[in-house]
Protein backbone atom coordinates (compact mmCIF):
# COMPACT_ATOMS: atom_id res chain seq x y z
CA UNK A 1 0.00 0.00 0.00
CA UNK A 2 1.97 2.96 -1.17
CA UNK A 3 0.56 6.26 -0.03
CA UNK A 4 1.90 8.05 -3.09
CA UNK A 5 -0.65 6.57 -5.44
CA UNK A 6 -3.91 6.26 -3.60
CA UNK A 7 -6.43 5.57 -6.32
CA UNK A 8 -8.97 8.20 -7.07
CA UNK A 9 -11.39 5.60 -8.35
CA UNK A 10 -11.52 2.27 -10.10
CA UNK A 11 -12.04 4.16 -13.36
CA UNK A 12 -8.47 5.41 -13.45
CA UNK A 13 -7.30 1.82 -13.08
CA UNK A 14 -9.55 0.65 -15.90
CA UNK A 15 -7.91 3.15 -18.19
CA UNK A 16 -4.40 2.07 -17.15
CA UNK A 17 -5.31 -1.58 -17.63
CA UNK A 18 -6.81 -1.03 -21.05
CA UNK A 19 -3.66 0.73 -22.21
CA UNK A 20 -1.41 -1.98 -20.74
CA UNK A 21 -3.41 -4.76 -22.37
CA UNK A 22 -3.40 -3.01 -25.71
CA UNK A 23 0.36 -2.61 -25.57
CA UNK A 24 0.78 -6.27 -24.55
CA UNK A 25 -1.26 -7.33 -27.59
CA UNK A 26 0.84 -5.08 -29.84
CA UNK A 27 4.21 -6.26 -28.46
CA UNK A 28 3.15 -9.91 -28.65
CA UNK A 29 2.09 -9.48 -32.28
CA UNK A 30 5.35 -7.70 -33.01
CA UNK A 31 7.33 -10.60 -31.54
CA UNK A 32 5.41 -13.16 -33.56
CA UNK A 33 5.77 -11.04 -36.70
CA UNK A 34 9.51 -10.78 -36.17
CA UNK A 35 9.76 -14.50 -35.55
CA UNK A 36 8.14 -15.42 -38.87
CA UNK A 37 9.81 -12.69 -40.91
CA UNK A 38 12.93 -13.15 -43.03
CA UNK A 39 15.20 -10.72 -41.26
CA UNK A 40 18.92 -11.32 -41.50
CA UNK A 41 20.84 -14.55 -41.96
CA UNK A 42 19.97 -17.20 -39.39
CA UNK A 43 18.43 -16.31 -36.08
CA UNK A 44 20.83 -13.88 -34.40
CA UNK A 45 19.15 -10.64 -35.48
CA UNK A 46 15.64 -11.99 -34.96
CA UNK A 47 16.43 -13.30 -31.46
CA UNK A 48 17.91 -9.95 -30.52
CA UNK A 49 14.85 -8.07 -31.77
CA UNK A 50 12.38 -10.43 -30.13
CA UNK A 51 14.17 -10.23 -26.78
CA UNK A 52 14.26 -6.44 -27.03
CA UNK A 53 10.48 -6.40 -27.53
CA UNK A 54 10.07 -8.84 -24.62
CA UNK A 55 12.04 -6.45 -22.41
CA UNK A 56 9.62 -3.63 -23.32
CA UNK A 57 6.74 -5.90 -22.44
CA UNK A 58 8.35 -6.88 -19.14
CA UNK A 59 9.04 -3.24 -18.31
CA UNK A 60 5.36 -2.54 -18.74
CA UNK A 61 4.28 -5.28 -16.35
CA UNK A 62 6.94 -4.49 -13.76
CA UNK A 63 6.61 -0.73 -14.05
CA UNK A 64 2.85 -0.30 -14.08
CA UNK A 65 1.18 -3.48 -12.88
CA UNK A 66 3.69 -4.04 -10.09
CA UNK A 67 3.87 -0.25 -9.66
CA UNK A 68 7.63 -0.50 -9.58
CA UNK A 69 7.91 2.95 -11.16
CA UNK A 70 6.77 4.55 -7.93
CA UNK A 71 8.36 2.20 -5.41
CA UNK A 72 10.53 2.87 -2.38
CA UNK A 73 14.30 3.25 -2.50
CA UNK A 74 14.79 0.16 -0.35
CA UNK A 75 13.16 -2.07 -2.95
CA UNK A 76 15.14 -0.49 -5.78
CA UNK A 77 18.31 -1.25 -3.83
CA UNK A 78 17.40 -4.91 -3.36
CA UNK A 79 16.43 -5.33 -6.99
CA UNK A 80 19.51 -3.44 -8.16
CA UNK A 81 21.81 -5.91 -6.42
CA UNK A 82 19.75 -8.81 -7.69
CA UNK A 83 20.01 -7.57 -11.27
CA UNK A 84 23.76 -7.08 -10.88
CA UNK A 85 24.32 -10.59 -9.57
CA UNK A 86 22.08 -12.09 -12.24
CA UNK A 87 24.09 -10.36 -14.94
CA UNK A 88 27.26 -11.54 -13.22
CA UNK A 89 26.05 -15.12 -13.15
CA UNK A 90 24.99 -15.15 -16.78
CA UNK A 91 27.81 -13.02 -18.15
CA UNK A 92 30.72 -14.64 -16.33
CA UNK A 93 29.40 -18.15 -16.99
CA UNK A 94 29.09 -17.53 -20.71
CA UNK A 95 32.47 -15.79 -20.76
CA UNK A 96 34.14 -18.64 -18.90
CA UNK A 97 32.57 -21.26 -21.14
CA UNK A 98 33.48 -19.47 -24.35
CA UNK A 99 36.90 -18.45 -23.08
CA UNK A 100 38.62 -21.78 -23.58
CA UNK A 101 41.89 -21.66 -25.46
CA UNK A 102 41.41 -22.69 -29.09
CA UNK A 103 41.78 -26.38 -29.76
CA UNK A 104 40.67 -27.52 -26.33
CA UNK A 105 37.37 -29.17 -25.63
CA UNK A 106 34.88 -26.61 -24.50
CA UNK A 107 31.75 -28.50 -23.50
Amino acid sequence: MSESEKPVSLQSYFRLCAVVFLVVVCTTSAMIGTSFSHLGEGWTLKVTLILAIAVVNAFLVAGYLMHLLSEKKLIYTVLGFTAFFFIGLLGLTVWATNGFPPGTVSH
Partner: protein
Amino acid sequence: MEIPYTVQNRPDTGIYNAKLGVWLFLASEVMLFGGLFSAYVLLRVGAAPGDWPHGWLNVTLGTVNTLLLALSAITTLLAWAACKVREFGKFKFFHACTILLALTFLGIKSYEYHDKLTHYEAQLTNGKFADGHFVKESKDFNLAKKTGTITLHGHIVEDRKELVDLRSPVAKAAKHEEITIAATDIKKLGNYGPAHNTFTAIYFTLTGLHALHILGGTLVIFYLWGPGSRMWKTDPERFTNRIEVSGLFWHFVDLVWIFLFPVLYLT
Protein backbone atom coordinates in the same frame (compact mmCIF):
# COMPACT_ATOMS: atom_id res chain seq x y z
CA MET B 1 2.49 -9.81 21.57
CA GLU B 2 2.07 -7.98 18.32
CA ILE B 3 4.60 -7.71 15.50
CA PRO B 4 5.01 -4.07 14.46
CA TYR B 5 4.38 -2.88 10.90
CA THR B 6 2.29 -5.82 9.73
CA VAL B 7 -0.28 -3.34 8.44
CA GLN B 8 1.14 0.15 8.57
CA ASN B 9 4.27 1.32 6.81
CA ARG B 10 7.40 1.78 8.87
CA PRO B 11 8.15 5.48 8.67
CA ASP B 12 11.80 5.28 7.65
CA THR B 13 11.46 2.51 5.05
CA GLY B 14 7.99 3.47 3.85
CA ILE B 15 6.72 -0.11 3.51
CA TYR B 16 5.09 -2.80 5.62
CA ASN B 17 6.75 -6.12 6.48
CA ALA B 18 5.00 -8.39 4.02
CA LYS B 19 5.73 -6.14 1.08
CA LEU B 20 9.43 -6.17 1.83
CA GLY B 21 9.18 -9.91 2.37
CA VAL B 22 7.57 -10.59 -0.98
CA TRP B 23 10.04 -8.40 -2.85
CA LEU B 24 12.93 -10.23 -1.20
CA PHE B 25 11.30 -13.51 -2.17
CA LEU B 26 10.89 -12.26 -5.73
CA ALA B 27 14.56 -11.27 -5.77
CA SER B 28 15.43 -14.87 -4.96
CA GLU B 29 13.00 -16.00 -7.66
CA VAL B 30 14.81 -13.78 -10.14
CA MET B 31 18.00 -15.62 -9.26
CA LEU B 32 16.24 -19.01 -9.53
CA PHE B 33 14.93 -18.32 -13.00
CA GLY B 34 18.20 -16.50 -13.68
CA GLY B 35 20.03 -19.76 -13.11
CA LEU B 36 17.61 -21.60 -15.38
CA PHE B 37 17.85 -18.99 -18.14
CA SER B 38 21.64 -19.09 -17.83
CA ALA B 39 21.45 -22.83 -18.38
CA TYR B 40 19.27 -22.23 -21.44
CA VAL B 41 21.67 -19.66 -22.89
CA LEU B 42 24.72 -21.83 -22.27
CA LEU B 43 23.19 -24.96 -23.73
CA ARG B 44 21.82 -23.14 -26.76
CA VAL B 45 25.06 -21.31 -27.49
CA GLY B 46 26.96 -24.56 -26.96
CA ALA B 47 24.74 -26.65 -29.23
CA ALA B 48 26.30 -27.95 -32.43
CA PRO B 49 25.41 -25.78 -35.47
CA GLY B 50 22.00 -26.71 -36.85
CA ASP B 51 21.11 -28.80 -33.84
CA TRP B 52 18.80 -26.33 -32.10
CA PRO B 53 15.13 -27.01 -32.94
CA HIS B 54 12.84 -24.34 -34.34
CA GLY B 55 9.07 -24.31 -34.61
CA TRP B 56 8.46 -27.29 -32.36
CA LEU B 57 5.81 -25.58 -30.28
CA ASN B 58 2.35 -24.36 -31.20
CA VAL B 59 2.60 -20.58 -31.49
CA THR B 60 -1.17 -20.10 -31.49
CA LEU B 61 -1.59 -21.85 -28.15
CA GLY B 62 1.42 -20.01 -26.77
CA THR B 63 -0.05 -16.68 -27.83
CA VAL B 64 -3.40 -17.49 -26.30
CA ASN B 65 -1.68 -18.40 -23.05
CA THR B 66 0.35 -15.18 -23.13
CA LEU B 67 -2.81 -13.13 -23.46
CA LEU B 68 -4.60 -15.15 -20.79
CA LEU B 69 -1.81 -14.46 -18.32
CA ALA B 70 -1.71 -10.77 -19.26
CA LEU B 71 -5.46 -10.56 -18.65
CA SER B 72 -5.13 -12.34 -15.32
CA ALA B 73 -2.39 -9.91 -14.30
CA ILE B 74 -4.79 -7.08 -15.06
CA THR B 75 -7.68 -8.61 -13.13
CA THR B 76 -5.29 -9.09 -10.21
CA LEU B 77 -4.43 -5.41 -10.25
CA LEU B 78 -8.12 -4.51 -10.44
CA ALA B 79 -8.95 -6.84 -7.56
CA TRP B 80 -6.44 -4.99 -5.42
CA ALA B 81 -7.73 -1.61 -6.60
CA ALA B 82 -11.28 -2.73 -5.74
CA CYS B 83 -10.10 -3.56 -2.23
CA LYS B 84 -8.52 -0.16 -1.91
CA VAL B 85 -11.71 1.63 -2.81
CA ARG B 86 -13.55 -0.78 -0.48
CA GLU B 87 -15.68 -2.46 -3.12
CA PHE B 88 -15.69 -6.05 -1.94
CA GLY B 89 -18.13 -7.33 -4.59
CA LYS B 90 -15.93 -6.14 -7.41
CA PHE B 91 -12.90 -7.70 -5.71
CA LYS B 92 -14.73 -11.05 -5.69
CA PHE B 93 -15.56 -10.69 -9.37
CA PHE B 94 -12.06 -9.74 -10.52
CA HIS B 95 -10.29 -12.47 -8.58
CA ALA B 96 -12.82 -15.03 -9.77
CA CYS B 97 -11.72 -14.02 -13.27
CA THR B 98 -8.07 -14.40 -12.24
CA ILE B 99 -8.65 -17.93 -11.00
CA LEU B 100 -10.58 -18.95 -14.13
CA LEU B 101 -7.91 -17.48 -16.40
CA ALA B 102 -5.17 -19.28 -14.49
CA LEU B 103 -6.99 -22.59 -14.70
CA THR B 104 -7.52 -22.13 -18.44
CA PHE B 105 -3.80 -21.44 -18.78
CA LEU B 106 -3.00 -24.68 -16.97
CA GLY B 107 -5.52 -26.56 -19.12
CA ILE B 108 -3.92 -25.36 -22.33
CA LYS B 109 -0.49 -26.11 -20.92
CA SER B 110 -1.42 -29.68 -20.11
CA TYR B 111 -2.89 -30.12 -23.59
CA GLU B 112 0.48 -28.99 -25.00
CA TYR B 113 2.31 -31.45 -22.74
CA HIS B 114 -0.01 -34.23 -23.83
CA ASP B 115 0.68 -33.34 -27.45
CA LYS B 116 4.42 -33.64 -26.91
CA LEU B 117 4.19 -36.85 -24.93
CA THR B 118 2.15 -38.59 -27.66
CA HIS B 119 4.53 -37.43 -30.38
CA TYR B 120 6.94 -40.25 -31.22
CA GLU B 121 10.16 -40.57 -33.14
CA ALA B 122 11.10 -44.05 -34.28
CA GLN B 123 14.58 -44.86 -35.49
CA LEU B 124 14.10 -47.60 -38.08
CA THR B 125 16.38 -50.49 -38.80
CA ASN B 126 16.87 -49.20 -42.37
CA GLY B 127 18.42 -46.00 -41.03
CA LYS B 128 15.38 -43.83 -41.69
CA PHE B 129 13.27 -42.05 -39.09
CA ALA B 130 9.50 -42.20 -38.65
CA ASP B 131 8.06 -39.23 -36.84
CA GLY B 132 4.47 -38.50 -35.88
CA HIS B 133 1.68 -38.54 -33.35
CA PHE B 134 0.47 -41.76 -31.87
CA VAL B 135 -2.72 -43.09 -33.47
CA LYS B 136 -3.01 -46.66 -32.30
CA GLU B 137 -1.03 -49.78 -31.65
CA SER B 138 -1.90 -53.41 -32.17
CA LYS B 139 -2.84 -55.41 -29.10
CA ASP B 140 0.30 -57.48 -29.23
CA PHE B 141 2.61 -54.48 -29.73
CA ASN B 142 5.73 -55.05 -27.70
CA LEU B 143 8.96 -53.38 -28.63
CA ALA B 144 11.14 -55.61 -26.50
CA LYS B 145 9.63 -58.83 -27.89
CA LYS B 146 9.47 -57.35 -31.40
CA THR B 147 5.80 -58.20 -31.94
CA GLY B 148 2.89 -56.20 -33.34
CA THR B 149 2.67 -52.82 -35.05
CA ILE B 150 2.28 -49.17 -34.11
CA THR B 151 0.50 -46.52 -36.17
CA LEU B 152 1.66 -42.91 -36.20
CA HIS B 153 0.27 -39.88 -37.99
CA GLY B 154 3.32 -38.32 -39.50
CA HIS B 155 6.01 -38.94 -42.07
CA ILE B 156 9.26 -40.80 -42.70
CA VAL B 157 12.50 -38.92 -43.31
CA GLU B 158 15.90 -40.00 -44.56
CA ASP B 159 17.92 -37.78 -42.28
CA ARG B 160 17.14 -36.88 -38.69
CA LYS B 161 18.23 -33.30 -39.37
CA GLU B 162 15.00 -32.80 -41.33
CA LEU B 163 13.11 -33.06 -38.04
CA VAL B 164 15.04 -30.27 -36.36
CA ASP B 165 13.87 -27.09 -38.11
CA LEU B 166 10.12 -27.31 -38.65
CA ARG B 167 10.08 -23.75 -39.99
CA SER B 168 12.23 -24.80 -42.97
CA PRO B 169 10.61 -25.13 -46.42
CA VAL B 170 11.44 -28.85 -46.52
CA ALA B 171 9.63 -29.52 -43.26
CA LYS B 172 6.64 -27.41 -44.29
CA ALA B 173 6.35 -29.31 -47.59
CA ALA B 174 6.35 -32.72 -45.89
CA LYS B 175 3.13 -34.69 -46.27
CA HIS B 176 1.75 -36.15 -43.06
CA GLU B 177 -0.26 -39.36 -43.19
CA GLU B 178 -0.95 -42.44 -41.15
CA ILE B 179 1.98 -44.84 -41.22
CA THR B 180 2.01 -48.26 -39.67
CA ILE B 181 5.35 -49.66 -38.58
CA ALA B 182 6.14 -53.18 -37.45
CA ALA B 183 8.01 -53.54 -34.18
CA THR B 184 10.60 -55.62 -35.99
CA ASP B 185 11.52 -52.55 -38.07
CA ILE B 186 12.06 -50.29 -35.07
CA LYS B 187 15.51 -49.87 -33.61
CA LYS B 188 14.59 -47.25 -31.05
CA LEU B 189 11.31 -45.58 -30.16
CA GLY B 190 10.88 -42.54 -27.98
CA ASN B 191 8.43 -39.70 -27.43
CA TYR B 192 9.15 -36.01 -27.34
CA GLY B 193 9.36 -36.08 -23.56
CA PRO B 194 12.07 -34.35 -21.50
CA ALA B 195 14.64 -37.01 -22.43
CA HIS B 196 14.23 -36.47 -26.19
CA ASN B 197 16.83 -33.75 -26.54
CA THR B 198 18.14 -30.60 -24.87
CA PHE B 199 15.30 -28.48 -26.20
CA THR B 200 12.50 -30.65 -24.85
CA ALA B 201 14.42 -31.01 -21.60
CA ILE B 202 14.54 -27.25 -21.19
CA TYR B 203 10.98 -26.83 -22.41
CA PHE B 204 9.54 -29.27 -19.91
CA THR B 205 11.69 -28.15 -16.99
CA LEU B 206 11.20 -24.40 -17.41
CA THR B 207 7.52 -24.46 -18.27
CA GLY B 208 6.98 -27.15 -15.62
CA LEU B 209 8.52 -25.01 -12.90
CA HIS B 210 6.56 -22.04 -14.21
CA ALA B 211 3.34 -24.09 -14.14
CA LEU B 212 4.11 -25.04 -10.54
CA HIS B 213 4.38 -21.33 -9.74
CA ILE B 214 1.04 -20.76 -11.47
CA LEU B 215 -0.49 -23.58 -9.47
CA GLY B 216 0.90 -22.24 -6.19
CA GLY B 217 -0.23 -18.71 -6.99
CA THR B 218 -3.68 -19.92 -7.94
CA LEU B 219 -4.00 -21.79 -4.65
CA VAL B 220 -3.02 -18.70 -2.69
CA ILE B 221 -5.38 -16.47 -4.63
CA PHE B 222 -8.15 -19.04 -4.27
CA TYR B 223 -7.60 -19.10 -0.52
CA LEU B 224 -7.72 -15.31 -0.31
CA TRP B 225 -10.80 -15.27 -2.53
CA GLY B 226 -12.62 -17.95 -0.56
CA PRO B 227 -12.01 -18.73 3.14
CA GLY B 228 -9.29 -16.11 3.54
CA SER B 229 -11.62 -13.27 2.58
CA ARG B 230 -13.26 -13.42 6.01
CA MET B 231 -10.49 -11.09 7.10
CA TRP B 232 -12.20 -8.39 5.05
CA LYS B 233 -14.73 -7.96 7.85
CA THR B 234 -12.18 -7.73 10.66
CA ASP B 235 -9.19 -6.00 9.11
CA PRO B 236 -9.77 -4.74 5.56
CA GLU B 237 -6.50 -2.82 5.55
CA ARG B 238 -4.46 -5.93 6.22
CA PHE B 239 -6.54 -7.94 3.76
CA THR B 240 -5.83 -5.36 1.06
CA ASN B 241 -2.15 -5.74 1.79
CA ARG B 242 -2.44 -9.50 1.36
CA ILE B 243 -4.10 -8.98 -2.01
CA GLU B 244 -1.32 -6.62 -3.04
CA VAL B 245 1.43 -8.99 -1.95
CA SER B 246 -0.10 -12.04 -3.64
CA GLY B 247 -0.67 -9.85 -6.70
CA LEU B 248 3.02 -8.96 -6.82
CA PHE B 249 3.84 -12.66 -6.92
CA TRP B 250 1.29 -13.22 -9.65
CA HIS B 251 2.71 -10.41 -11.76
CA PHE B 252 6.16 -11.92 -11.37
CA VAL B 253 4.88 -15.25 -12.68
CA ASP B 254 3.46 -13.37 -15.66
CA LEU B 255 6.83 -11.67 -16.08
CA VAL B 256 8.59 -15.02 -16.31
CA TRP B 257 6.16 -16.16 -18.98
CA ILE B 258 6.80 -12.99 -20.96
CA PHE B 259 10.35 -14.27 -21.42
CA LEU B 260 9.55 -17.98 -21.63
CA PHE B 261 7.14 -17.48 -24.53
CA PRO B 262 9.54 -15.85 -27.00
CA VAL B 263 12.50 -17.90 -25.86
CA LEU B 264 10.78 -21.25 -26.36
CA TYR B 265 8.02 -20.65 -28.91
CA LEU B 266 9.34 -17.93 -31.18
CA THR B 267 13.06 -18.46 -31.55
